[in-house]
Every structure is written in structure tokens, then in C-alpha cells.
């Protein structure tokens, strides 16, 4: 059952990855890009989890952990940065 579903799940995650990529490319605002990157991290995490099931070995559990944490750190830092540059009013930073 799982084996049948897995390829579709992985494909869906990869597709999600692509969609995130498109949003990241298109922007238009910096916040959009940060959001897209954050989502990219989350989807990548899910992808690795699915791959682990497919390979039958939790080969990159540390990677999963790291991605979960780093996505958050990156987003927070970027958000703080954007909060900070608000002084530039609507200056388009992204």
C-alpha cells in the first residue's frame, strides 16, 4: 500500500518544491520571497521524510532536524531585517 502511494507523494512534494521556487522567483515583495523560502524549507523537510520511507532507512534524520531549525532561524532573521529597514518607508528591498 505504502509502496504504491510513495512515488506519487514524492512527486507531489517535488512539485510543491517547484511551486515554492516559482513564488520565490516572482516575489514580488521581499516578504513574499522570505515566505517562499520558508515554505521551501518545510517542503524539503517533508521530502526527505518521504525519501527516508522510500529507501527504508532514516538516513538523514539530522538533516531533517537541521532543516526544521534553520528554516525558522532564517525566516526570523529576515523578518527582523525587514522590520528594521521599514525606516526606508516603501523602499523596495525585494
Amino acid at each position: 500500500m505504502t509502496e504504491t502511494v510513495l512515488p506519487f507523494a514524492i512527486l507531489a512534494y517535488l512539485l510543491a518544491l517547484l511551486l515554492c521556487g516559482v513564488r520565490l522567483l516572482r516575489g514580488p515583495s521581499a516578504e513574499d520571497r522570505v515566505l517562499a523560502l520558508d515554505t521551501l524549507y518545510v517542503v524539503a523537510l517533508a521530502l526527505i521524510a518521504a525519501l527516508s520511507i522510500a529507501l527504508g532507512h532514516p538516513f538523514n534524520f539530522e538533516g531533517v532536524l537541521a532543516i526544521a531549525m534553520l528554516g525558522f532561524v532564517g525566516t526570523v532573521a529576515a523578518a527582523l531585517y525587514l522590520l528594521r529597514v521599514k525606516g526606508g518607508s516603501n523602499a523596495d528591498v525585494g
Partner: protein
Amino acid sequence: MPMWADICVAVLLIVGALAALIGTWGMLRLPDFMTRLHAPTKAATLGAGCALAALALRFYFVEGGSSLRYLIPLGFVFVTAPVSAHMLARAWRARHPVTPKPDPAMPSASP
């Protein structure tokens, strides 16, 4: 692996994949930032959570109780995702003060 677990894993995977797809699709298609913020924060988080839960369940039958450690990133994502979204919303608000709009459904021009 018993049958019920197999089904559970499969369902989790399907739900997760669909949620991720929908979430990112929403992020791509929704009209302005605040609405775009909704989609991945909820759906994609659910997608990742489902995948991780599937992982934990799948390997429970391989390595026993220690597979519970796969739930750590799950909890992590569940705690951090709202905070990320919150921070982003604050950032957006700080740079784009709210102006009342007659028709919220109307796509706002990107700034």
C-alpha cells in the same frame, strides 16, 4: 508491519503530499501577501507534519520506541511555523500600513 499501520502511513503520506501541494499552490495563486501568507503556513505545515508522522509510524516497526525521536522535528515545525508567519506579517505591516479597501477580493497591485 501490520496492515493497519501500512494504511495509516499511506494515508498520512497522501494527505501530507496533497496538503503541501495545495499550500504551495495557494501561495502561488492567491492575490496579495496577507492571503498568500495563509496558505503555506497552514497547509504546508500540515504536509510536513504528516510526512514526519508517517516516518515515525513506519520506523516504529523497525526500531521500536526510539522512532519517537522523529516527532521532534514535527513538534519543532508546529511550534515555529506560526511564529514565522507572525513575524512575516509584522514585517509586512510595518512596511505597508493598512489602508481600508472597498473590495478585499480585488487583487491589489503588488507594491
